[in-house]
């Protein structure tokens, strides 16, 4: 998973704090795009449970606007933010709308939709995600002309497949074809999904090897991927890898919350294994 050293909310630039009523008002108007953009982010961040939020975000998912490179605005910025927010609301009602966005020509929007479908554990997304990836690393995973982006947002799509959790043979076969992708971030995403779906330690071992990659960005990605998979044998290598403590702490949180002992009772307990993990986290604060 691509990871910044530390996410900082955009709130200072956006002015005074707002409440839900104000966020809904801003999202429902269409003159001021930056107000809509912020409102969509806000509703996701606050995990709004207001039915109006779901309705307005699904509506915003249909909004289109050109990229304004000079102003630093991405294409379809409001729709992309709406897609991200819908993943955080945790409401299945968003799934049909996000599936539709998965067919959009804008790969940035497809990327946001894929991530949110993963967060929503949407089984209905497995088939369309697999069919978009089926052409493999040389087609779906090939770079777009004059761009560093790939034909498909492979990283997000692979991660979504891992999060959704369906481990049929044909799903695994599609993901496995990306293990050999030349970009280490795609390789990492494929290993993460396979580790989540199969628990097979050979995928974990490959992620450990990426923790020693010369590029910091790759080590960060491997950290996030090990955390998402909750693979506890990674504890010591995570502690040792050369990366920011913030990233290590996020990865170790994943080991605690997604790890083996968490699976049984539905929540992690304070057994010896978990206590040892917490001790390593304490040292990184």
């Amino acid at each position: 998973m691509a990871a910044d050293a530390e996410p900082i909310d955009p709130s200072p630039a956006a002015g005074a704090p707002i409440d839900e009523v104000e966020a809904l008002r801003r999202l429902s108007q269409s003159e001021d795009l930056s107000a809509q953009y912020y409102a969509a982010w806000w509703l996701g961040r606050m995990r709004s449970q207001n039915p109006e939020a779901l309705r307005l975000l699904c509506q915003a998912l249909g909004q289109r606007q050109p990229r304004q490179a000079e102003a630093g605005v991405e294409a379809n910025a409001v729709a992309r933010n709406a897609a991200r927010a819908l993943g955080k609301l945790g409401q299945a009602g968003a799934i049909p709308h996000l599936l539709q966005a998965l067919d959009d020509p804008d790969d940035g929007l497809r990327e946001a939709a894929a991530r949110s479908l993963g967060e929503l554990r949407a089984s209905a997304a497995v088939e369309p995600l697999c069919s978009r990836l089926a052409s493999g690393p040389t087609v779906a995973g090939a770079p777009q002309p004059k761009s560093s982006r790939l034909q498909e947002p492979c990283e997000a799509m692979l991660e979504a497949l891992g999060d959704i959790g369906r481990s049929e043979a044909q799903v695994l076969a599609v993901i496995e074809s990306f293990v050999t992708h030349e970009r280490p971030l795609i390789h990492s995403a494929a290993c993460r999904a396979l580790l989540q779906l199969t628990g097979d330690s050979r995928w974990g071992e490959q992620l450990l090897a990426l923790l020693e990659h010369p590029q910091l960005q790759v080590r960060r990605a491997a950290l996030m991927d090990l955390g998402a998979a909750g693979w506890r044998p990674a504890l010591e290598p995570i502690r040792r890898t050369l990366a920011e403590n913030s990233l290590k702490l996020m990865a170790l949180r994943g080991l605690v919350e997604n790890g083996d002992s968490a699976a049984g009772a539905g929540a992690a307990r304070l057994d010896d294994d978990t206590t040892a993990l917490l001790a390593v986290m304490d040292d990184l604060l």
Partner: protein
Amino acid sequence: MPSPPPAAAEPSELIEALRQADSPMGLLLATRRLAEACHPGAAPSLVEVLGFNNPGAAVAAVDGLIALGEQAVEPLLDNLDGHNYGARAWAVRALAGIGDVRGLELLESALACDIGPSVRRAAARGLGQLRLNALPLDQQASVRQRCLDALLAGGGDGEWVVRYAVAVALEHLLLSIDRAQPGHHSGLRALQQLAAETGEDTPVVRLRSELALARLAGQTEH
């Protein structure tokens, strides 16, 4: 530990090697060597390394600064980078590790209002481990109260990792506050809130707070 060999007057060669480093790995190794020299003259250069966006080298520099102890406090306080929260996080981490009471004000304001979660996190941890034994008893009590107040407020931070650090710090701090003191009770109440599903939505924070409460309860039995 055997006493280190008498150091050269100034660690200038090692600092020069640090300046010449032209790769991330070279910088890491040069920082490690400078840190191991454990020379007070190295402190400003080690502080500088904290801003280089090289986590491996920063870890080595923090270790070196903590080893220098109180000799590193002024260089750290004087050179805090207002524009680079990554660098501030490492600097606050070093101050937390040293535990010198001169860092108190900085730790308080960092936990209360720094924009970087990693800075607030390191500050929270530091507020739980100031070394106060050299102070008169009444001053110890007032410093502990200030640490406690800052941590109680930090328990409401929006970032899970800051609340996690608050739980860790409260555990340490409460071990040194008498159970009969009202502060002990308010600290325990804050931990109970961080351990409860109603008060805290991040499982790892609840677990860490639960562990802190169990340890504090175990301590009172003895």
